[in-house]
């Protein structure tokens, strides 16, 4: 393990002169912990999707970078994220997905909370059968709520609590995809899958946001989506990705199509975009469907990709949906050997972070530059506090 210090000066140079992030940013536990705060806790990070808790009362315990969280939909229908602990003794409140029918009861001493997080019962707190005590002010002891926001069905959380408001932080990408600001319908059980990948989460971002690899890793795309049909997308310090000018709709055996997002505009007839929103959410939009991938970092060299497909209408053709899921699963599985190979490559101690194609790799460099900038800011704050 290093002392959390890596030289990032080369990373912040222009793409034609820069090196990629040093190996330690992929394999070192100390750096992983540093990035947990600098890149994930301090931003709006993807946690889950609202479709995970479709009905009021649905509750799911989650662990995000080791922090126990409770995702639920309250009785009014709003999605909320809490730290999954009782304010009494810090006991884990909910151990497995469940329906909260009334209140959330701590299994230890039975303190109870509403689905909005209010502490509503403190049994025996003043002695047997005495359920109040002046020292225990329920109003001050509600569940610890994490800032959250739902956009494109993704539940974004800001664990540090001090990021700019979501609408401000994401204003650029929200505006870019304003035409897709329509109701999204999760395709259901056959439209979600997870991939467990032996790689650092950042390599999944890096691979997603460039089109350079497409003809080599996804040869099936060559027939209609050639490399020259793609363009780079870069919004420094926010997101990067790629777009294509030749999206073709999936057609069923009898010519069935998915319904388009309403009034999405002519521009999107054959155009589609794929954007990595920093830190860990990968989104794709097409005229007739969309997807969201949430990268769950589970350690320096392990990432779980949670993939969800969405449509413009609630009812879609099941066969066509299954074909679409299979198609995307094939594509994302084709990427696994690449991100795992690059991960293993990070143990080659002479590797200097690599050099970028100034033309084809600029979205990747955009991400590296953001990572380096965030870490440098984090280190500067830490030094100032010492």
């Amino acid at each position, binding site marked *: 393990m290093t002392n959390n210090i890596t030289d990032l000066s080369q990373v912040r140079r222009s793409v034609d002169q820069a090196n990629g992030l040093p190996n330690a940013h992929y394999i070192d536990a100390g750096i992983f912990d540093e990035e947990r705060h600098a890149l994930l806790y301090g931003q709006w990070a993807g946690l889950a999707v*609202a*479709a995970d*808790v*479709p*009905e*009021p*009362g649905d509750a799911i315990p989650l662990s995000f970078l080791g922090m126990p969280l409770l995702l639920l*939909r309250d*009785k*009014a*229908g*709003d*999605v*909320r*994220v809490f730290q999954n602990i009782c304010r009494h003794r810090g006991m884990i409140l909910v151990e497995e997905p469940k329906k909260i*029918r*009334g*209140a*959330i*009861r701590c299994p230890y001493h*039975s303190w*109870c909370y*509403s689905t*909005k997080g*209010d502490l*509503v*019962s403190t*049994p*025996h707190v003043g002695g*047997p*059968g*005495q*359920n*109040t005590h002046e020292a225990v002010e329920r109003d001050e002891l509600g569940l610890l*709520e*994490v*800032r*959250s*926001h*739902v*956009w*494109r*069905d993704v539940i974004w959380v800001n664990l540090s609590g001090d990021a700019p*408001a*979501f*609408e401000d932080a994401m204003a650029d990408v929200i505006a870019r995809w304003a035409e897709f600001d329509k*109701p*999204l*319908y*999760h395709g259901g059980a056959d439209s979600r899958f997870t991939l467990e990948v032996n790689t650092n989460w950042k390599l999944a971002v890096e691979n997603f946001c460039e089109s350079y690899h497409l003809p080599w890793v996804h040869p099936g795309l060559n027939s209609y989506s050639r490399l020259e049909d793609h363009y780079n997308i870069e919004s420094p310090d926010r997101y990067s990705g790629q777009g294509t000018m030749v999206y073709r709709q999936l057609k069923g055996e009898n010519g069935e199509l998915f319904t388009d997002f309403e009034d999405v505009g002519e521009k999107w007839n054959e155009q589609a975009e794929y954007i990595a929103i920093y830190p860990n959410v990968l989104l794709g939009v097409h005229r007739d469907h969309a997807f969201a991938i949430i990268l769950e970092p589970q350690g320096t060299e392990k990432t779980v990709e949670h993939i969800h497909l969405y449509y413009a209408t*609630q009812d879609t053709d099941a066969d066509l949906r299954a074909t679409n899921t299979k198609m995307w699963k094939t594509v994302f599985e084709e990427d696994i050997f690449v991100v795992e190979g690059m991960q293993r490559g990070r143990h080659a101690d002479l590797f200097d972070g690599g050099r970028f194609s100034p033309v084809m790799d600029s979205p990747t460099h955009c991400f590296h530059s953001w990572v380096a900038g965030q870490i440098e800011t984090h280190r500067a704050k830490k030094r100032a506090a010492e």
Partner: protein
Amino acid sequence: MNEALHEAMLAAHEDHDSAALIRLYTQAADLANDVDAACFFLTHAYVFALEAGAPEVAALRARLVSHGREVPVHEEAARMLNQSITRPASASGGKTG
């Protein structure tokens, strides 16, 4: 508490049978010889009712309040506790906490 009631309670705990827990702890409260013992059992009945979103919540709480063992629920909390889970989930939408 008689042995049969005690055994029934253990079985209800084992089965996570909230309706039985509410009923049996209420029964134990009704059979108790003094107000402290009654409120002990009432507290358990109330907590299990609260957890289950059971209709007995209001009456059990009122009994505890009448003995000074719980505070009267204010209007907002009453609405919150009694609100039934009927509202359908929206497909997507925004909310910043």
